């Protein structure tokens, strides 16, 4: 096979999304270089994963060769590549996010196989000219500069902090890094509401509409907070690192202000504060190999939803076996953000051998696993029974908690809505606000989450709907690009570790 013929075969396999056929064209020690790779892929295993991560995250791919010149075992090729990125939801006008560029490729052959393939192109036009601009009304995280250097492009606002959501990789590359490798997330905006003092533990039970009384020191637990009307406020991961100290690692709600307001003027002997703790998430199957290189605690022995006080990269920290990935991973809570960038660098260096990838929260996987998030101001006035976490609520307990009486009344009157999954029959855009839904019989609901499932190969969603809408029903969802039918299903969509 001539070098240019090998390249044509490589392009054909790429268009077909066949990473095995692509890899088979390489020698066992073959090297693939490309402008958008973090580093060259060398050797069969690296090629198999790298080519799959890239190629299967795109569709409608076309390649055209303008000039191909073979000189002995080497080919020099000029051509054009066109493709569309899967999983972004497309642009606001409904058009796809495209990956179109011209390239020079150099193909070096050995024994009839590709020993080196270098694709040289300008990646600059593939990305926005500038990162999103910011305003001083919100806080930067202490990892800000590191996230910028890692290619952060889009931020949300979360607990009055900038939350880096989207970096430079395609959704499929981030998804694969999470499921097969290791990812590092800046989640410093996951603020800790610290309850400290003799009454801290009892006060926690009063705040939460889930029974927290059996939490031992070193435990973590998924918590639910509601207001006095039973409306959900947030669903923090609660940590008990010390006997008299609780951290509610909470979502986008002012839990600290809420808790301080409740304590004020009462007999609760508890101090409520927001310590300078800026968490990081290290998620993915290789998180253990990464973090144990810099952590003093025996992480391999940690059970899911436990935490330990330890040191990470020489810094005092709590480490927990938790995360928002719906899979394996850890969170690191340093006691101070003074040396935040040192901590970031140390974890990145530890994960270098595992190709650690800096990402935002990988919503594609979270929704597949039924992991959601909420805050008080966008929760559709949901009560705890309407949420996926409603199963944890026990209103028949003797323990008093905020919202208990209201939730009892709601239950006794009959719960009106429930959370369900949706399997869309077509592509839907990126969701920016809730979409309405109806079943054609007057029963309605709201789609709160919508995303592409790489595992299922279709778009999926989570909605809060009338109780009359049941599993298996067909509903119609109205979104900015039109309407799309969906089948109602259960959540989670996929099993853990599938």
């Amino acid at each position, binding site marked *: 096979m001539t070098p240019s013929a090998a390249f044509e075969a490589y392009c054909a396999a790429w268009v077909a999304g066949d990473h095995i056929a692509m890899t088979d064209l390489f020698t066992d020690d073959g090297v693939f*270089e490309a*402008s*958008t790779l973090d580093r060259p892929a060398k050797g069969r295993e690296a090629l198999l994963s790298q080519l799959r991560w890239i190629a299967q995250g795109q569709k409608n791919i076309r390649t055209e060769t303008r*000039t191909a*010149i*073979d*000189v002995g075992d*080497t*080919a*020099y*090729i*000029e051509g054009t590549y066109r493709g569309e990125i899967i999983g972004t939801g497309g642009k606001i006008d409904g058009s796809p996010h495209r990956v179109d560029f*011209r*390239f*020079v*490729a*150099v193909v070096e052959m050995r024994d009839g196989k590709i020993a080196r393939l*270098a694709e*040289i*192109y*300008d*990646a*600059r036009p593939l*990305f926005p*000219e*500038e*990162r999103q601009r910011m305003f001083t009304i919100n806080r930067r995280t202490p990892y800000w*500069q590191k996230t*910028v*250097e890692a*290619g*952060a*492009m889009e931020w949300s606002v979360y607990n009055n902090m900038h939350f880096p959501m989207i970096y430079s990789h395609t959704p499929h590359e981030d998804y694969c890094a999470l499921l097969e490798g290791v990812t590092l997330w800046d989640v410093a905006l996951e603020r800790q509401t610290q309850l400290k003092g003799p009454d801290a533990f009892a006060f926690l039970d009063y705040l939460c509409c889930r029974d927290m009384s059996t939490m031992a020191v070193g435990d973590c637990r998924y918590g639910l907070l509601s207001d006095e009307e039973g409306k959900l406020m947030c669903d923090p991961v609660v940590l008990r690192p010390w006997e008299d100290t609780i951290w509610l690692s909470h979502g986008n709600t002012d839990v600290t202000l809420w808790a301080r307001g409740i304590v004020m003027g009462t007999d609760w002997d508890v101090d409520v504060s927001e310590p300078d703790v800026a968490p990081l998430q290290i998620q993915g199957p290789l998180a253990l190999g990464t973090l144990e290189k810099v952590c003093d605690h025996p992480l391999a022995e940690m059970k899911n939803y436990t935490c330990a006080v330890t040191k990470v990269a020489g810094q005092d920290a709590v480490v927990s076996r938790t995360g928002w990935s719906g899979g394996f991973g850890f969170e690191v809570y340093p006691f101070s953000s003074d040396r935040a960038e040192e901590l970031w660098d140390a974890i990145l260096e530890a994960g270098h051998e595992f190709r650690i990838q800096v990402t935002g929260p990988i919503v594609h996987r979270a929704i597949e696993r039924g992991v959601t998030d909420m805050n008080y101001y966008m929760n559709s006035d949901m009560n705890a029974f309407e949420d996926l976490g409603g199963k944890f609520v026990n209103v028949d307990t003797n323990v008093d908690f905020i919202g208990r009486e209201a939730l009892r009344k709601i239950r006794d009157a009959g719960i009106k809505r429930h959370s369900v999954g949706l399997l869309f029959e077509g592509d839907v855009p990126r969701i920016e606000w809730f979409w309405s839904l109806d079943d054609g019989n007057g029963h309605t609901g709201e789609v709160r989450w919508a995303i592409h499932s790489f595992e299922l190969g279709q778009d999926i969603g989570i909605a809060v709907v009338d109780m009359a809408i049941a599993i298996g029903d067909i509903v119609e969802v109205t979104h900015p690009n039109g309407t799309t039918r969906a089948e109602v299903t259960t959540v989670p969509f996929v099993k853990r570790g599938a």
Partner: protein
Amino acid sequence: MTTPRSPSATLLSCVDAFNKRDASAAAAMADDRALFEIPMLKPNRLRGRDEISRGIEAAFKELKSVELTVAKPAETDSVAITEGRLKVTRNSAPDEDHQVGIVAEVHGDQLVRFSLYLNARNRRLWSDETIL
């Protein structure tokens, strides 16, 4: 009567002109409607001898040095392609070292297209640095 230079010779002459930061020499090889494509420039497509000369000259003013090294080009009757490295030292920004591909297309004795392929994204990082 002159013998038309080969595409490879034209490509290498152009590389030589870049290394000498000689915009006039590079432009002199170009056809009246020739196209130069250089990702780091703004605009990055220069059309015609005058525009090419002015555009490259302006770029060279920002540079202390240019070191463009390439492998022996492969060629057809009208196109030469090679790969190499481009190292630039800037007056007021960090040095750069790029993997490059170069395509030179000739018509008769004239260069009609010079396309420099490199990843210029690091010139537009999502940082607070100056963005050219």
